[in-house]
């Protein structure tokens, strides 16, 4: 049983927060409510506190945990993303985002966040096991791609696209029996990685999450196949490098393939040595909605692109197909004509990536 504050403490905290919603007492009060199982009350206190202290990392982490407990993983991920923006080395936020992306089969993003979490706390058992799961999935996808090429001669699918649950899979690789691997329970329970892979997965926050992996023998075969595919070249593709052909041209800064929720499907955008794709994607998704509304109001047909000039860059965002956008960025001062041509090439690369032909 977790010990929480005494009733008197709770009353004192509550009075302090009532007097001043921005008081630093809002966090222990929200945490106390959470421990008492009063999740909604905790949520209200936390949100009110954040209105006054939007840069409070601990509050964003608690909010993420509350959303997680309410089953709203998207919002939890939003809060972790905010926490990472405020504190780029925050272990809990990177771990949360790592598990979130792993669960969704977004292996590149999962890898990025889990590696950051592992750097912060190398001994954390949940992160170490999640990285093991991630590597097995990457190897499995590479092997699956190789099998597909061998069987059909068709180019492989994206190895980091969302992974279909083994129970519903049909390929030779997927048909192998599954073996459960336990992930150690962590202090702040990450999203249930296994929920889409095992019907017997425990409830959110319950003891050890179960993660499916191929049996040892199959994994070895797949690992060898994946290694062979890597040696042959061209089979293992990194979504972060989809727009790399554009990078040989001097003005190019970065490119992103985004969905309507602002999530990054592929590409990379770095400034000042930091990857900012997810951050940019979140806002660009909203800007695209505004663009569509503006075009509709003015009755000037569907929108084809937005060109933005800032002090440091020239950016272009264009709809690719339903619910997908391509962002292309170049250094400030780049001719607009070059930008528009680069945007067209970026759209072609994105389409090829989506079709598994990049």
């Amino acid at each position: 049983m977790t010990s929480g504050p005494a009733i008197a403490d709770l009353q004192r905290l509550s009075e302090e927060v009532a007097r001043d919603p921005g008081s630093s007492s809002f966090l222990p009060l929200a945490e106390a409510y959470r421990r008492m199982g009063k999740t909604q009350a905790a949520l209200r206190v936390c949100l009110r506190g954040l209105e006054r202290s939007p840069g409070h990392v601990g509050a964003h982490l608690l909010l993420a945990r509350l959303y997680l407990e309410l089953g709203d993983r998207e919002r939890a991920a939003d809060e972790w993303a905010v926490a990472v923006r405020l504190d780029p080395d925050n272990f809990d936020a990177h771990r949360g985002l790592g598990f979130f992306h792993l669960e969704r089969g977004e292996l590149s993003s999962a890898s990025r966040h889990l590696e950051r979490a592992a750097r912060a706390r190398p001994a954390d058992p949940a992160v170490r096991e999640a990285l093991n799961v991630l590597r097995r999935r990457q190897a499995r996808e590479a092997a699956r791609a190789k099998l597909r090429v061998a069987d059909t001669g068709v180019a492989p699918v994206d190895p980091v696209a969302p992974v279909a649950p083994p129970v519903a899979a049909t390929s030779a690789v997927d048909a192998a029996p599954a073996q459960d691997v336990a992930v150690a329970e962590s202090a702040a329970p990450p999203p249930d990685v296994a929920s889409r892979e095992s019907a017997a997965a425990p409830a959110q926050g319950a003891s050890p999450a179960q993660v499916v992996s191929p049996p040892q023998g199959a994994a070895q075969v797949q690992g060898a196949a994946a290694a062979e595919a890597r040696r042959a070249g061209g089979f293992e593709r990194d979504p972060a490098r989809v727009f790399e052909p554009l990078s040989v041209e001097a003005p190019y800064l970065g490119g992103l393939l985004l969905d309507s929720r602002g999530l990054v499907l592929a590409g990379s955008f770095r400034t000042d040595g930091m990857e900012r794709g997810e951050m940019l994607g979140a806002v660009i998704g909203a800007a695209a909605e505004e663009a569509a509304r503006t075009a509709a109001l003015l009755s000037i047909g569907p929108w084809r692109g937005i060109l933005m000039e800032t002090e440091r860059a020239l950016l272009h965002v264009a709809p690719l197909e339903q619910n997908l956008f391509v962002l292309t960025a170049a250094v400030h001062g780049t001719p607009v004509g070059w930008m528009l041509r680069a945007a067209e090439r970026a759209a072609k690369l994105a389409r090829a990536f989506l079709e598994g032909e990049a």
Partner: protein
Amino acid sequence: MSDVVSAALSRLSQVPGVRSAMIVDAEAGVPVASELGAGVSGEAIAALTASLFQRTEQAARDAALGRLGSLQLETDEGHVVVAGSRPLIVVVIADRDAQLGLIRLEADRAVEALR
């Protein structure tokens, strides 16, 4: 509104292909001055373009790309050009085949006049 700004707005609206030109309060999303084409709702355009401006401004800030200078929305049948910075922005709505270079030039002049 000063004569300089009025003149800049007038020049903008006379560029071939320009349907409407406005000065908009980017924070409130309301029109400050306008030369509108027939059947155009200045209030609605001001609200939407200000919102679009704010979103892209936020994107630029979040990505450490500095201040947003201008944005241009391209559609099947036209363009919306937004230039300037808070509190006042210049908004131009133009036909698809309008001379965009000239519009951008005049929009920049209008922005200068607002400073």
